[in-house]
């Protein structure tokens, strides 16, 4: 699928971008430090959403809905935190998180592809199981003695005002996520694997007749995608927060699905949507910190979700949304 936008949509996008840049510039010249803080917070919040959205999109491109991202985040964050705290190594923790994500991806595949469980139910099982397991095994006494991942300055790039701090002075997993956007984009739209993946999501029957093993590829993709959510879990526990707490994914696995849909199931589109959501979250935190406006924090807290509803409704009206044709349907070899 070429992901061609209608001309008026493209114009709308560019107009929106231009307006945003002007607003950012205005704010930056008025209050530099606070604008930088909000935008840095935007990137911080966007990273997790982008990873979740990429996990979701690889599944959906192959025809498998994954509403278990929330659970994948949570259990991976738990594994990452526990292993990091046991070994004293953030790197080992990150690997454990990715490993747990792969395992949960595999479990989702085993249910949804192997056992032909309804895909939505399979995801729900993951979510409930993750919440139960992490609460059951949670050990309050654990902590990260060495602290969380710290920022790495990318040489002179980090010295650029605003942009440098926001994009080029970040912790390692954020950079990894940005790199993964390119990897996933190229893999999905420029590789044989990507073509086959999109084929089994659009018309598994036809893909089957040309010799693609639909079930095997779905198994593989859903498992691999779980690794991305696992990285998200590692990011959450080891880079964003620096600890584990009960239900810490806080609905962001679901939000990632919305981000994926806004982003039209493309990595860069999803990242743009993730930045938008991240922005509302960062704005909310900033509001709560300095009380410049007399808006109750609960109403600021609603903002990203209300905006999601409006955008989902509007994009439905505009009709730009088209799902992979075989999405949600389990494939039975005929």
């Amino acid at each position, binding site marked *: 699928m070429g992901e061609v936008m209608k001309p008026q949509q493209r114009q709308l996008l560019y107009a929106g971008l231009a307006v945003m840049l002007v607003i950012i510039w205005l704010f930056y010249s008025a209050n530099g430090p606070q604008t930088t803080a909000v935008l840095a917070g935007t990137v911080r919040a966007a990273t997790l959403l982008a990873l979740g959205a990429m996990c979701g999109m690889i599944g959906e491109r192959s025809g498998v809905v994954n509403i278990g991202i929330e659970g994948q985040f949570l259990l991976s964050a738990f594994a990452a935190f526990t292993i990091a705290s046991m070994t004293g190594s953030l790197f080992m923790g990150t690997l454990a998180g990715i490993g747990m994500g792969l395992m949960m991806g595999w479990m989702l595949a085993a249910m949804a592809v192997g056992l032909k469980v309804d895909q939505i139910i399979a995801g729900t*099982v993951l979510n*409930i199981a993750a919440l139960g397991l992490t609460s059951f095994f949670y050990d309050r006494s654990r902590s990260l003695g060495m602290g969380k991942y710290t920022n790495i300055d990318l040489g002179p790039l980090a010295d650029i005002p605003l942009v440098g701090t926001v994009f080029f002075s970040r912790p390692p997993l954020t950079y990894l996520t940005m790199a993964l956007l390119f990897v996933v984009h190229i893999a999905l739209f420029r590789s044989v694997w990507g073509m086959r993946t999109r084929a089994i999501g659009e018309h598994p029957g036809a893909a089957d007749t040309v010799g693609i093993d639909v079930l095997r590829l779905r198994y593989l993709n859903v498992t691999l995608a779980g690794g991305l959510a696992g990285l998200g879990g590692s990011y959450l526990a080891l880079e964003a927060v620096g600890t584990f707490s009960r239900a810490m994914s806080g609905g962001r696995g679901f939000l990632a699905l919305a981000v994926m849909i806004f982003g039209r199931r493309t990595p860069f589109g999803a990242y743009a949507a993730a930045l938008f959501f991240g922005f509302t979250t960062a704005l909310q935190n900033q509001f709560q910190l300095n009380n410049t406006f007399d808006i109750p924090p609960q109403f600021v807290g609603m903002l990203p979700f209300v905006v999601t509803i409006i955008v989902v409704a509007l994009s439905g009206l505009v009709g730009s949304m088209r799902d992979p044709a075989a999405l949600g349907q389990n494939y039975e070899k005929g």
Partner: protein
Amino acid sequence: MSRSILRTVAIPLVAVVLGLLIGAVLILSQNASPSTAYTALVVGGLGDADAVLRTLQKATPLIFGGLAVAFAFKAGMFNIGGQGQLLIGAVFAAGVGFGIDGLPMVVHLPLALLAGAVAGAIWGGLAGTLKATTGAHEVIVTIMLNFVAGNLTDWLSANPWKDNSGNNIVARTPLVEDSATIPTLGAVPVGFLLAVAAAATCWLVLERTTYGFEVRSVGHNRNAAQYSGIRVGWIMASTMAVAGMLAALGGAVESLGVDGRFEAGVNVGLGFEGITIALLARANPLGVIPAALLVGLMEAGASRMQFKAGVAPELIDVIQALILFFVAAPIIIRWLLRMRHDTSEQLQLGAGWGKS
């Protein structure tokens, strides 16, 4: 018992047994005794009149929540918004419960319940209407509405409706008036009876009315239903409104019959358990009752299990997930029981994802 009923009950039953068995392994992994733990669980949920009351109280919002999911299932929609709908119902029922005084109970209590139900119907209906008019997927919209409801109810109970008695700093409403409190008959809370009545009504509406037939037609095949002249949009919107109303009634009963007020954070997660209940009941409104009683029993006994056997009460969540897994993947149980394959047993929702 006829053969078909046996077949319907066999899978959930075996699923429960398997879930408990794996739960026992988890208990062993914590160096505790499964038999002590499960005995404490059952005694804590059935041991005496207090325990039974607790079980029935726990089961009540689960019945409402299970119905909220099951009813939407019937129209082919997945209502993950039970949590938000429950919160909305709980806060508005409490609002009317404490905000008005001087009314006799026969007026005040129904009015408070009605306030919760109507608020929930609007909350759920919003998702259904958006789905019907714009194609916005109800899974995403209801999830988002959960967060909005969480924030809204937090704000209501922390600001305009805050309990300002003494030096209270908690986000909660004042206690509801006696005239809006749901009474208890011995060990049976009246809220539980309401829940059972709601389940029976849902079954009647779905199986014995034209509206129910239309709902099920839309669930089976939306295009065919449209073609045969059923107003699909109206069915989707109204079904979600009914679902929202049911979940909200669960919240209203919590406020008026169990907690005596609305308190932010008390009901968190309760609304999601309706999903497990509905799946365990295979989306049958009457099946929701035993499913909710089972889970309610486990939840009522969980604290005793922790006290007697030192097992974290969250074990119940894990067992619920396992049961859900085995119910959703009946292929495993069929293989265990050497049952013949019957595709009608498989619940199917995912195919509706993203399609308007």
